């Protein structure tokens, strides 16, 4: 059955089994899982890097259990699904997801496109005024509410609200013009 595996899957599987992989291989493996999480659970706003790391570790630790009756990365995806499911159960109870609804493989965005998008995102942030950037980061990254932002930046709550929308709008426009 293992003849059905992709060459890349076979190579990775062999390395995991023989315990002979290096950091670069491990990095690619974790990224591949992370991409799958991002593409299937983008709505859930997850810490996909950490979840991917956990799923990769479980796959490594249990690789002896892989019998080769499905493609290797499909097996890894079932593990990743359980990791994400468990995370959602603990942190966002009440959400129902099924494995069947999920994408087989990450859509084929390659590393260079991903890197370009990351650059666009960073530039979009640089394109904001200092206050817009501060409000946007405090609201989106740190999850602060407008009262907390207002107190931190010594502005009014309404000013925080208007700056937040303006910043997001500017980013949206920048992305529209520059996304690869």
């Amino acid at each position: 059955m293992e003849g059905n595996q992709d060459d890349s899957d076979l190579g990775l599987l062999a390395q995991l089994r023989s315990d002979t992989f290096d950091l670069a291989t491990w990095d690619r493996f974790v990224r591949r899982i992370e991409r799958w999480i991002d593409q299937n659970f983008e709505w859930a706003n997850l810490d996909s890097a950490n979840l991917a790391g956990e799923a990769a570790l479980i796959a490594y630790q249990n690789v002896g259990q892989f019998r080769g009756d499905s493609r290797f990365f499909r097996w890894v995806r079932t593990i990743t699904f359980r990791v994400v499911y468990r995370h959602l159960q603990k942190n966002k109870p009440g959400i129902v997801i099924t494995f069947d609804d999920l994408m087989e493989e990450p859509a084929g965005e390659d590393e260079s496109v991903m890197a370009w998008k990351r650059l666009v995102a960073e530039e979009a942030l640089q394109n904001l005024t200092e206050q817009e950037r501060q409000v946007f980061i405090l609201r989106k990254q740190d999850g602060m509410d407008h009262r907390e932002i207002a107190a931190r930046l010594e502005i009014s709550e309404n000013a925080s609200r208007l700056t937040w929308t303006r910043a997001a709008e500017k980013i949206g426009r920048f992305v529209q013009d520059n996304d690869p």
Partner: protein
Amino acid sequence: MSRDEELRASALLDEYVKGAVRGQPIAVQALLERCPRSQRDRLQLACGGVDYMVHHLYSEQEREEVVQRTFQQIQEMRRKRQALADAEARELTYDAVPSDRPGDYLAAILGMASEQLHQNPPALGGSTVNTWHRGGHSGDEWRIAEAKVQVVEQVIADQAEDLLMRALINSPPVDVYAVARHLCLFVKETPLRNVDGCLVVHGDVGGILISKHITNSQRKRFTCAHEIGHFIRHRHLRNYFTDEMSHWGSLLYTETEQEADTFAAMLLLPPTFLPAKFGQEKPTWEQADHLVETFDVSLTAAIRRMIRASHWRCALMVAKDGHLEYSVRSPELDAYDRRGARVHETTASAHLNYAEAGEEAMIELPAKAWLEGPLLDEEDVWVREDSRRLQNGYVYSLLTVIE
């Protein structure tokens, strides 16, 4: 455009982000319909901007840290596996160790000196376990102790489920020996005297001994799960544990023992493998028998799990030779047992004391025949008692308050 309209659009953008954070995404179109016309284009761009940043503005440094950290964990796993392989390669028989202490045998296999074993003497009393009998605690202390037990049960259930996920165990019956192996614990059966199970931890690896004298495979599984519970929850306290399951309900039954038992119950009967409505139906023998069959656990383990998860006011009363030995009650049951006392002659349990193994009896009777405490302050409280006599001479009684 008015400031009010801008603020309205801002509130809708907040709603969009909150939905995403909660994992309940809101369709942009639905928000646009509630947005002032003058602000719709802006809101659409803003939602797109936030989405883009969520997906593409992550910290490369954070990702590299994850990769580094997990790669390091792999090196640790390799070391642990090697240590386990080294231990397993030491082919020692139990007789080869001069002392009769099971810990010395495990220590020899693990390559550690006997002096390194730290076994605390069992503590007498003072445990939250011994709270359900007369004189144990006052009403409020009892409720606080019960709340504490429930918190611990929840934490332990989470630990057990995480462990099963990591060991890729997805359906019952749970292979406890695979779980032990996953944790780099070897398991051996040896003819232990007066001990059911034993655990010695050396660094991150360890060994479990299970008594060959246990003939019941379900009890062996429970013993192994119990020792895993000590490994997960108590290895920071000491490195040597010996256990005798008959301590259950006695003064030798300490808080750590209760935790290890709870862990075993949660590992063998984890919440995610149980039916969705588990605990919502009144406990019955049929349900208990089904759990025994599906999860390959002892009747005692199945009933204890069933009672502790029950939303009903119910209990398991365990009697031998006409005396109550111990009991397990549901979180809802506000009453005490009469441990050690003679079982009341009107109960089905008393009747079955002289019956054949496997015989069952049901009766409805006043709760005071079995229980004491706040429950009896209610007027005219009755319980349904479903009792069964087991092969080993014990009589198990399921009590449910008639609501």
